[in-house]
């Protein structure tokens, strides 16, 4: 079965950066947002690697990545992602931070997907992360699915296999360290991925160079995309203020520390 795999994925600050909220004229943002190095959202990254794996096993499948973010940042991040695997990019030039409105984001993504030349819903698998590392809400993928009229949806997916009869067998994370297993007869479906099980592919310079030949024009003509800045009224955004008075226990034998910890556990 050949699928049209569409991966929705945004940008997130490099995970090691120090983040601090600030108030901007258009609402909350991050201090030095322009300066922060970005990565492809890690959850969406897992979705992309799974997409590549699926496409490899399902000949004729295609991968398109729909990404909303400031054009220059998208371009910079693509220089890393594009080396991993072959895909086409549909770039939307707009705000990319966590404080944007998920409803507007879902509309922008769904509109972009629906406008893909040759988009065939019956073959579509819409992939994304189960949450972003920015907003962390886990709502956009469901809304994209609804807007596209796809009601077979899965959240926190860790595994997808395709049965010989073409059914999708999907493992979703549920509470208690368990997975729920479902069978979906056929595409279309929305799969919002957790981590999956595939490692990040190594960089492949040839793939990167080939990808970039088509990505650069896509980036240059990225569609300016406005979101609704008034959808959410933020009263406050703050860092947690709790600093604890840490009691330092040092130069104490391990046995004594163990005794103290054992007593604490039993409390």
């Amino acid at each position, binding site marked *: 079965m050949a699928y049209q795999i569409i991966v929705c994925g945004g940008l997130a*600050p490099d*995970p090691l950066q120090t*983040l*601090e*909220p600030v108030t901007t004229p258009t609402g909350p943002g*991050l201090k030095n947002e322009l300066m922060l190095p970005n990565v492809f959202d890690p*959850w969406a990254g897992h979705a992309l690697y799974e997409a590549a794996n699926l496409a490899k096993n399902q000949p004729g499948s295609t991968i398109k990545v729909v990404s909303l973010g400031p054009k220059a940042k998208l371009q910079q991040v693509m220089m890393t992602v594009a080396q991993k695997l072959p895909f086409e990019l549909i770039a939307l030039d707009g705000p990319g931070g*966590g*404080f944007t409105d998920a*409803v507007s984001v879902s509309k922008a993504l769904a509109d972009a997907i629906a406008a893909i030349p040759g988009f065939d819903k019956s073959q579509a698998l819409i992939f994304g992360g189960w949450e972003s*590392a*920015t*907003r*962390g*809400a*886990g*709502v956009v993928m469901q*809304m994209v*699915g609804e807007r596209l009229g796809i*009601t*077979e*949806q899965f*959240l926190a997916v860790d595994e997808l296999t395709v049965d010989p009869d073409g059914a999708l067998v999907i493992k*979703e*994370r*549920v*509470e208690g*360290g*368990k997975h*729920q*297993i*479902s*069978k*979906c007869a056929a595409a279309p479906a929305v799969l919002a991925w957790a*981590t999956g099980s595939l*490692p990040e592919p190594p960089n492949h310079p040839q793939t990167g160079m080939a990808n970039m030949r088509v990505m650069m024009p896509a980036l240059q003509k990225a569609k300016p995309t406005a979101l609704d800045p008034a*959808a*959410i*009224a*933020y*009263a406050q*955004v703050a*860092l*947690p203020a709790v*600093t*604890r008075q*840490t*009691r*330092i*226990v*040092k130069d*104490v034998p*391990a*046995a004594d*520390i*163990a005794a103290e*910890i*054992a007593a*604490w*556990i039993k409390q």
Partner: protein
Amino acid sequence: MEKILVLLHTTDEGALPKAALETIAAAAVIGAYDLGVIGANAAAAAQSVSAGAAAVFAVEGEQFAQSRYATDAAAAEAIAKASGAAVIFATGTMRFNRALPGVACRLNGACETHIVAIEPDLKVHRWYYRQRMEATLSRAARPWILLLEPGAFESAPAAPGAAATPIAVTVETRTTVTGYHAPNADQQTIRPDAQLLLVAGAGWTKKQKDGATHTPEAAGLILNFVQKTQSSLGSSKSLVDLSGEGQSVLPFLSHLHQVGQTGSSPRHRKGLATCCHGEEPHVVGWRFINDRRAINLDAACGWSRGKADVLYVADSFEVMRELEKLL
């Protein structure tokens, strides 16, 4: 006051999850509410907690017993329409986290998830950027679905009341739930209801004082501790990543154990971090742990100081060996 609907689901066994009573309590503080329940045994479950509800609805039947997007979304949509509520309080379980955002879209509304507090004027609190900052926000869009983070709200006692009005819903779906996959009981290391979370950091697989790694011993110490104390096991991202890259690792760890940056933010009463110098658990994954202790070789570790209540400056291997004797 805007009309509120409390939306709950039952478990596969037909009971309400613990967090259901938290959702009811959170709504009751704000004002009058309708109650709706979806799932196996929904009507009976609804009646068991409906004392404070103005109207009570239920969608049940075989098709709705399973946790599945298409059926859950259709049921939730039907109840939301029947109630006509402007604000919907729902339990932030995986089942509803999957289904309700799409329902908000279907109803031309909006949805907030992972809510940890709600103010009387319906400003909600939730975390952004992997629990690194907290926002207080409100929306004008209605209906507005609020998914409450389990464990973040006080629970109300269950008080039975009026019987539920059943709502008939028909929906087509191509998806069948075929079962669950769970680790064997003796390998079970994720226990959401445990009192204690043990966080294992990448230090466990690094070279120790003698210059060698002791990963098998580390694995034994950790597993033994988790089994004896019936605690839940969490891990830092770097340690989980190592296992994906075929390095010397703790064999039982998977991404499901990951806390912090790109993992879960578990709620446990106590947390003990081991071998985590410079790793995120101290900062992020710990946010919802009340009582935090860390064992770390570096007294100056900026990621423990100010974040943990007690920092033991010691070798985790030595302390855990001693603990093994005591537990």
